[in-house]
């Protein structure tokens, strides 16, 4: 029997009625245990011995699916591993697990049989089936023979995300000529495998609105729509993408995305006593650094270096110091342990996609990260503290107070806390700065560096940051690519955006992810390269709905995991607010500066990112539309609740913008017909259908009729003037109501 590839075994197993159960078990368990291309199968080569073959076909797969989780490389409960024959013969704390030739004396067999002299196994899920138990027992009876030189399984070493990303070869497809962009090739290959038909390209005007809202968070103007529709050249769309990437509003829009990931939060504490308890009053300087860095297309690697160790990397560059706001944000007046542990937790979630924090109290349950390894990473941050100094920042060299990080407690010792309890340090474990073994890559090269005031800094954070952006680190680029992808498509490639470990979900398109990660790094970690690559793909430009293809495709892939169409998304609160202001020609597009009071977001016109944002204080309109949770928001929730409807249908902000938009559009729309057309295009970015036009014209008449009726007098506005919904001119009132209705239309808040 010659077995070369794992799937052959699966095939062979499927053929045998007796082991169907095992297949079911596999299927059931894939959610937590991915049995990734097991080395032992590939390397085993030829098996002359039937017992050996039986081990590989009937025994090992069952053990892998049902037992390795607790008795494998990651955890070996009771000191027992069952991932090799040798390990089973050797056994654990209570002796050998199997006795060759004697199943009745073998504790492992007894356990799966639920005999009363051992604990029944497996502990979770259904018991093994009769035939599975029979297979195990027969194999033990026949002498428990396994392949020579069997290597115990190491799921971690085999785990996709812990292996370096290498550039995959492009799939060869018959239709390859259609696709110039590798993204499309990978996506098409995955689609083909499932027999999915791609949706057609979205109408040009929808593509334009989509890419505008995605990149700058503002819809295109009518003139921009017209110009694009008229531009027949082949590169028209690509030119739009380039222009938008050059627009400084790109940094504002994507700044907010990255501030979600990096947990931007303004200072808060005890207001009644004017005390700051966490973050810093000057944290907004870091927010401006983020926007500026994105607009300059600073390499993502450089951004990580500056955020984690700007003070060690470039101690005399105020901009680099401001970048350490990423760490400053975690400052906590009351508990240094909480503060440092937050830094460790979120550095690891944001950049590495690892839940390292699980290992704060105990060894990680799924990933091979020991508790000591957690404290090794913590040791990198142990010496730091925050400082505030006046520095000359930015191009204008304006002098501002900046809170930044520097190593102050050079002798601070990191101690392992028993079960994570800060009151129970374990003193006999020596902690050295380090990174988890499994993704060690280049390891940490720690060299002390000189600080701005001539002192010394440990260089640990810089070493950590360098290790993160080293090409040998398998995670950093993949995690970043996933974040960007998710924000363009409304769904990530790896569903668990902060967990690329063994408990995370596998990528929907592994090769695509790796191709993007490798080339992102090669581009000099250029986020603009990444955006351009994604946005110019045909995948991105597909329709979000395609009634003809829908039925068949939806049957196969209802969640659109394979990307047979574009996903529809809802605007974030910032985009809802900023777009209304922009359409009203009222948006103040200036960039940077101290945060404005959050309540002013109702009545003033800056972009939303410039209003106070703390746990307690956020602009109400943003909050209603699922604003980022300041404590952790790697991915925004999208809710649909009545308060959103109330905010748009009754809120004075929406009314004011509706009136402004209507006045602006009325200037060159004499007739109702033209007004309906303009209003529709302005608000939804598309032309109305004939029926829609008819409905809107009817509505205009109704409202005009209503408001020219002198009998019911409107209440006066808050400021004593007429409220925006009740202009004394019935014509104007009716038109404002139409624009207002369109702002409440599903197609306004939806990015299709």
């Amino acid at each position, binding site marked *: 029997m010659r077995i070369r590839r794992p799937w052959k075994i699966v095939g062979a197993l499927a053929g045998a009625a007796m082991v169907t159960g095992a297949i079911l078990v596999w299927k059931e368990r894939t*959610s937590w245990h991915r049995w990734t291309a097991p080395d032992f199968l590939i390397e085993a080569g030829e098996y002359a011995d039937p017992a050996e073959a039986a081990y590989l076909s009937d025994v090992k797969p069952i053990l892998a699916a049902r037992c390795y989780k607790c008795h494998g490389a990651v955890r070996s409960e009771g000191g027992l591993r069952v991932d090799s024959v040798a390990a089973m013969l050797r056994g654990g704390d209570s002796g050998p697990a199997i006795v060759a030739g004697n199943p009745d004396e073998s504790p492992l067999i007894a356990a799966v049989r639920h005999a009363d002299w051992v604990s029944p196994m497996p502990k979770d899920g*259904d018991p093994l089936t009769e035939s599975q138990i029979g297979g195990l027992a027969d194999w033990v009876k026949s002498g428990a023979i396994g392949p020579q030189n069997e290597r115990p399984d190491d799921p971690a070493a085999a785990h996709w995300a812990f292996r370096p990303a290498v550039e995959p070869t492009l799939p060869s497809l018959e239709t390859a000529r259609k696709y110039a962009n590798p993204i499309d090739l990978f996506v098409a290959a995955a689609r083909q495998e499932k027999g999915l038909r791609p949706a057609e390209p979205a109408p040009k005007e929808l593509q334009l609105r989509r890419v505008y809202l995605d990149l700058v968070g503002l819809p295109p103007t009518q003139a921009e729509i017209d110009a694009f529709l008229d531009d027949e050249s082949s590169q028209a769309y690509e030119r739009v993408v380039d222009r938008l990437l050059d627009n400084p509003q790109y940094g504002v829009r994507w700044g907010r995305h990255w501030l979600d990931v990096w947990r931007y939060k303004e200072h*808060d*504490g*005890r*207001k*009644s006593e004017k005390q700051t308890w966490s973050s810093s009053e000057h944290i907004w300087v870091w927010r401006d650094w983020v926007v500026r860095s994105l607009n300059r297309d600073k390499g993502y690697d450089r951004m990580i270096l500056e955020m984690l160790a700007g003070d060690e990397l470039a101690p005399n560059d105020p901009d680099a110091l401001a970048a350490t706001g990423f760490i400053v944000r975690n400052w906590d007046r009351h*508990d240094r342990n*909480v503060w440092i542990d937050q830094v460790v937790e979120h550095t690891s979630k944001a950049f590495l996609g690892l839940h390292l924090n699980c290992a704060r109290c105990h060894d990680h349950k799924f990933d091979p990260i020991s508790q000591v390894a957690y404290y090794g990473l913590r040791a990198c941050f142990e010496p730091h503290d925050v400082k505030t100094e006046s520095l000359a920042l930015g191009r204008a060299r304006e002098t501002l107070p900046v809170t930044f990080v520097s190593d102050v407690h050079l002798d601070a010792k990191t101690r392992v806390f028993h079960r994570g309890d800060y*009151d129970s340090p374990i003193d006999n474990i020596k902690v050295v700065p380090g990174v988890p073994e499994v993704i060690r890559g280049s390891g940490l090269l720690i060299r002390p560096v000189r600080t701005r005031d001539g002192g010394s800094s440990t260089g640990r954070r810089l070493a950590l940051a360098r290790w993160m952006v080293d090409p040998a680190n398998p995670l950093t680029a993949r995690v970043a690519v996933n974040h960007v992808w998710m924000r363009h498509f409304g769904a990530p490639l790896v569903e668990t955006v902060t967990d690329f470990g063994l408990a995370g979900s596998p990528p929907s398109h592994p090769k695509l992810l790796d191709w993007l990660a490798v080339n992102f790094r090669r581009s000099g970690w250029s986020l603009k390269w990444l955006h351009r690559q994604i946005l110019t793909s045909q995948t991105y430009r597909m329709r*979000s*709905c395609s*009634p003809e293809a*829908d039925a068949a495709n*939806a049957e196969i892939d*209802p969640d659109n995991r394979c990307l047979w169409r574009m996903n*529809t998304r809802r605007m974030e609160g910032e985009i809802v607010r900023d777009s209304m202001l922009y359409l009203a020609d009222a948006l103040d597009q200036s960039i940077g500066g101290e945060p404005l009071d959050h309540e002013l977001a109702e009545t003033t016109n800056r972009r939303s990112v410039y209003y106070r944002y*703390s*746990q*307690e204080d956020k602009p*109400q309109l943003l909050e*209603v539309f*699922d604003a980022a949770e300041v404590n952790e928001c790697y991915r925004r*929730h*999208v*809710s*649909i*609740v*009545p*308060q*959103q*409807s*109330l*905010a748009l*249908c*009754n*809120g004075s902000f929406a009314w004011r913008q509706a009136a402004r938009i209507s006045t602006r559009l009325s200037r060159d729309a004499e007739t109702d017909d033209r007004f309906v057309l303009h209003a529709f295009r302005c608000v939804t970015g598309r032309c109305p*259908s004939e029926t*829609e036009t008819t*409905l*809107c014209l009817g*509505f205009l008449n*109704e*409202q005009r009729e*209503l*408001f020219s009726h002198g009998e*019911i*007098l*409107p*209440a006066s506005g808050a400021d004593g003037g007429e*409220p925006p*919904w009740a202009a004394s001119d019935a014509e104007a009132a009716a038109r404002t*109501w139409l624009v207002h*209705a369109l702002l*409440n*239309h*599903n*197609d306004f*808040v*939806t990015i299709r």
Partner: protein
Amino acid sequence: MAVNGLALCDRREFLRWSAAGMATVCGAYGGARAAGATDEPHDAFQEGNLPCVRAARADAVIWLCMLGGVSHLESFDPKPALNKYAGKTFSATPFDVLNQRFTNKNIDNMGSKEGPKHESHILPLQVGFQKQGESGIEVSDWWPCVGRRIDDIAVVRSLWTTDFQHSAQAQFHTGRPVRMSRPPSVGAWVRYAAGSRSSRLPGFIVLGQPPSDFGGGRTAHEASYLGPSYAGVRLSSSPTSALPFSPPDSRLYAQAQRNEFELLRQMNTLTAQGEPNDSSRKARSRAYELAYSMQESYPRVLDMSDETPETQQLYGLDEPVTEPFGRQCLVARRLVEQGVRFIQIYHGGNPNNDNGDWDAHQNVRENHGRMCPRVDKPIAGLLQDLKRRGMLERTLVVWGSEFGRAPNVDFRTPCGGPDFSKRMGRDHHVFGFSCWFAGGGVKGGVVHGRTDELGFHAVEDRHYVTDVHATIYHLLGLPHDRMKIEGRQRLPDDLGTPIHGILA
């Protein structure tokens, strides 16, 4: 394949199985999922996806939370020993409360730099108490009206928590100190798992001022990883500002808006034809319907003109002291009538006092003497009103506070000067405190659990705060140990255990 085996599998998987003829989707809701439910519980909690559904004893929950820390000693757990040992330090009593097995590091918070820790003298009871009702349960004289309803109440005297700061407010609602995490609140879990019975109002409504950030903020009614649609919807009980973004009071506006919604409905129907699978469009249309009906239905809930003067007086609406909380309690009853599942009322939340107004560091008599009359009559009125309408049987009322107050005099707050004998306040106390339940499936007139002689440690039938949550889930017919979702770990302490001793 048994339906039970599918308990935790994903909904779509479930439907695929059922499509294959291996199981059938059971459309009817049982237990808490009463017939006519409109906002369905989350898929995972629908009939057929649950391993077992107990018969629900309650349909709705009214959750009353006093922010700042109510003294258990001067409310529902009076301790005459405090009078006996007044003026003595703990170590001068026969009770070695500082060295019990329940003592933990929080004990360090019980002193201050100016004095030996925890060694301030015991403060006598600041108010009298007496046996109430037929059950003869002792209740302090600051709670006379609730005391008279004691035969409908099950008092739990043995709660404990861990967060010594006011962020215990969030912990009381989520089971975790905010520094560790901010998991979904008890109300959000209920909304998630039991759905809502009202088509015209949200299923989880919050009244009153929530905790400050210091107290954990809105975490106490948020839904965290369940998604914001399960979070409590904070509404005002003031008829003049019923809703956020409420419509202007104008017939013209109402008429014009009716036209607008009709236009929107028609246009959305048109676009629906092009996007048959867009579920968010459907959900948004429903949100607009709910918003539209809330504009009408919620102000009607707040309009008390159809309540008799006698009822209004029962809740204390005729007195300025009791009016604010009385109104919230009456609104809560009216919301239950409208089918709202979970109504959470905060008392003592104050934007200018991070701690919550019940925080009696300086003078218990002054503080509680002022605070109790604001809520005592309204709460008793609520219980009485629910009972006489036959609603108490199916409505669970829960009263609590984030922690209790210490038996000894507050050391940390140097109010009253250096002379300790003048200090009259009590500090926070996490080792033992009280809450109570009434209605919906709990016994009346019983006491469960016990603190030690000084009211320091809960020593009998100890309950962590999540046991309060588990009791609620249990009474709503929900499996308390299944209140979790895939990918989010919840430990046994997070899930709690129902307090079986008080179940009727």
